[in-house]
């Protein structure tokens, strides 16, 4: 007999202690944009465990190459880097066919966005966005230039550390996640009010990509490794047990 739990493959309860709360006054914009009532907890139904599926033919050949996907009459300025890693769920299983979308500032800390008025220069050869699907091992990679830090309107001398924004859609809509990846060794990380919205040091470390010398492209690009974990479900937990059963 199937229990409702098996039927729907419900997600593990989200561990909210590793996420930033809604209200984090050090990050001023959160003050008026944070809910005051408690979230209403509901167990998974089909509405939560299902989600949009994407196929490779929806993406272009250069969508994961930020060095070439907006190059006009030359290459973008900046340190050339490869970024790669695995998307897994909380059970440690690879998440296949997840849609990973990334966006970032250029090497001088300027975004190609009509609302960004920072004095840093626009790079005519850099768009600053890319996207890809994870493969059968949950692996993803893209090529870009390292984004620059930039000042922003919070406290007068708040600067964002270099970062790349990530959006991940795995299998279920309740796994939807947006986050930011930082770079190992950046002295701005511990001062950033957005980083500090996360109350958990270990969770912050999980957002810092490590330099990966074994994956450097010789005389071409440095490399950074960034693994992502999305919520696990009881359905994939059972899969695990079956696979591991002797």
């Amino acid at each position, binding site marked *: 007999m199937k229990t*409702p739990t098996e039927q729907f493959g419900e997600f*593990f309860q989200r*561990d909210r202690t590793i*996420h*930033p*709360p*809604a209200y984090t006054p050090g*990050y001023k*914009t*959160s*003050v*008026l*944009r*944070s*809910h*005051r*009532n408690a*979230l*209403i*907890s*509901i*167990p*998974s*139904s*089909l*509405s*939560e465990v*299902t*989600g*949009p599926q994407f196929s490779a033919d*929806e*993406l*272009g050949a250069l969508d994961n190459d930020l060095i070439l996907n*907006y190059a006009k009459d030359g290459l973008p300025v900046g340190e050339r880097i490869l970024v790669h890693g695995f998307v*897994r*769920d*909380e*059970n*440690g299983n690879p998440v296949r066919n997840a849609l990973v979308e*990334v*966006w970032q*500032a250029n090497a001088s800390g300027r*975004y*190609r*966005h009509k*609302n960004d008025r920072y004095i840093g220069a626009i790079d005519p050869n850099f*768009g600053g966005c890319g996207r890809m699907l994870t493969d059968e091992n949950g692996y993803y990679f893209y090529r870009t230039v390292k984004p620059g830090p930039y000042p922003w309107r919070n406290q007068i001398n708040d600067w964002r550390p270099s970062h790349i*924004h990530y959006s991940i859609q795995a*299998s279920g*809509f309740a796994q*939807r996640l*947006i*986050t*930011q990846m930082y770079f190992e060794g950046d002295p701005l990380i511990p001062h950033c009010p*957005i980083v500090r919205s*996360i109350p*958990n040091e270990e969770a912050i470390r999980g*957002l810092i990509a490590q330099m990966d010398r074994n994956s450097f492209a010789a005389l071409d690009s440095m490399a950074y490794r960034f693994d992502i*974990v*999305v919520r696990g479900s009881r359905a994939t937990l059972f899969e695990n047990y079956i696979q591991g059963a002797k």
Partner: protein
Amino acid sequence: MSNQISTPVYLKETASQTAGPYVHIGLAPKQAGFDIFENNFGNVLVGPDTKGERIRIEGRVIDGSGAVIKDVLLEIWQANAAGRYNHPADKQEDKPLDPSFRGWGRACSDFDTGVYSFETIKPGSVIGRNGVPMAPHINMWIVARGINIGLSTRIYFSDEAEANAADPVLNSIEWVERRKTLIAQRSEKNGQVVYTFDVYLQSDNETVFFDL
């Protein structure tokens, strides 16, 4: 010493961070002001062959001061007209899939007016936990600068009063008054069915957000 083989070891979910003010670059580059991808994800969920009643979902997202937010990104996920999700986990074999309906869309609030919209169809009723049917609804996810972790809510329909009254999720909201924040109001504008769904991030009228 513990038995290492049978001790469950779970990874921790990656922490959320705000989508920031420039979320459009990555998720809706045309709105950011440039053209880069051949195929863009957008707010039109229907094609000419999609089955179901055409509807428009329209609204604004409002902050704690009453100001309309103009840099929000919203996504919706819904079942087809028969009440089935286009996903392998949906085993409601008695309901047809609609090959011309994925059920997912992405929209941004307008930089000038703050209005967002989706062109879609009204979903059918989906079976809920323990076999209890859920009233027709659309799942919505909201991110923006100042929102540290994406907000999940549901859109129900004002012309489904009977189904709404029996919906297990609406009924799980202890405060009856707050359930109204999830009901989109139906109207007709120029012959088109429009459901208005405004989201209040923080106020006496605060929208119900779920911890899924």
